[in-house]
């Protein structure tokens, strides 16, 4: 048993629906915007669309699956750091 077992019964739909609705429309608008601009070939847009498919899963681990979908899944260290930043999606996943 952990301390969260004492949590009161909460209506999570009431608490979070409007926020989730807002973010979903933002994602849709982002995809519309990049399509209108002819930028759907950018690997980040492609990987984002692939990750969206994780939302259709049946198990309550969709956030984890989205994060895994956007991750570098190789295991060995790379030879040299190409820079310092991260892009948010992995280009080397072989997506097409």
């Amino acid at each position: 048993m952990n301390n969260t077992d004492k949590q009161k019964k909460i209506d999570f739909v009431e608490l979070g629906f409007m926020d989730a609705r807002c973010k979903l429309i933002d994602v849709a608008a982002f995809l519309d915007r990049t399509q209108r601009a002819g930028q759907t070939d950018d690997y980040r847009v492609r990987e984002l669309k692939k990750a969206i498919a994780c939302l259709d899963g049946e198990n309550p681990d969709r956030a984890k699956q989205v994060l895994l979908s956007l991750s570098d899944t190789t295991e060995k260290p790379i030879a040299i750091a190409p820079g310092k930043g991260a892009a948010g999606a992995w280009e080397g996943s072989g997506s097409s």
Partner: protein
Amino acid sequence: MRYVEPHAHMVSRTTDDYIKLVQAGCEAVCEPAFWAGFDRSSAKGFFDYFSQLTKYEPARAAKFGLPHFCWICLNPKESEDIKLAEDVLEIMPDFLDSPNCLGVGEIGLNKNSKNELEILERHIDIAAQRDELILVHTPHLEDKLKGTKLIVDAILNQPSIRPERVIIDHVEEHTISIPRDKGFWVGMTLYPESKCTPQRAADMLEVHGTERIWMNSACDWGISNPLAVPEAAFELRRRGQTREMIDKVLYQNPRAFLSQSPKFKL
């Protein structure tokens, strides 16, 4: 409400932020060494930075009655230059001896390169030789999964390091179980755009429980919020969590981990 801010880069913040932390109930702030947003040109730059963390920043916090602790290391973003890294490792011990220094951190990986891994291992060796606590930075975004696995393996390869004396920071839903299942502590970082929102951090507490876990703002020179921890407490209260649960995660847990260093006193 009382809380400990276990990860904040106060050298990048204004004095106003110290006032806000204290007014929000913060009883101690801990500052790991990190990347300044630009590469330092020599170990002399690190000497000045470590002096700031061990002398000047504690004095600035003390003006507001806030205990300030720090961690010392070379951040993985500057590990690609092996010669520079070796020069910095050489000056570290004197600063690790400082009365407000709790251990080696935030070490880790950034792009998961060979040089980064080599310097990470050197830091782990220093911590092992000195029996220091370790605070680990895990990589950003697409690099986090791979980096977390490499880091956990590297630490476990040093048999004299006990996992309960190491905190693996910046975990998310896909990485939280990797270190936790091996006995490490984990930290969730609350950022407006990357890492965790307060809502997702609350989800992870409800799914994974409240043992060996803390939350931090990791506020720095980028987009970040020094009051992220008390704001996450507000989210937990909205969800009906008890005051006892919130106190455990925000105050008792960081105090329990950090008190493994005899220098940490509240």
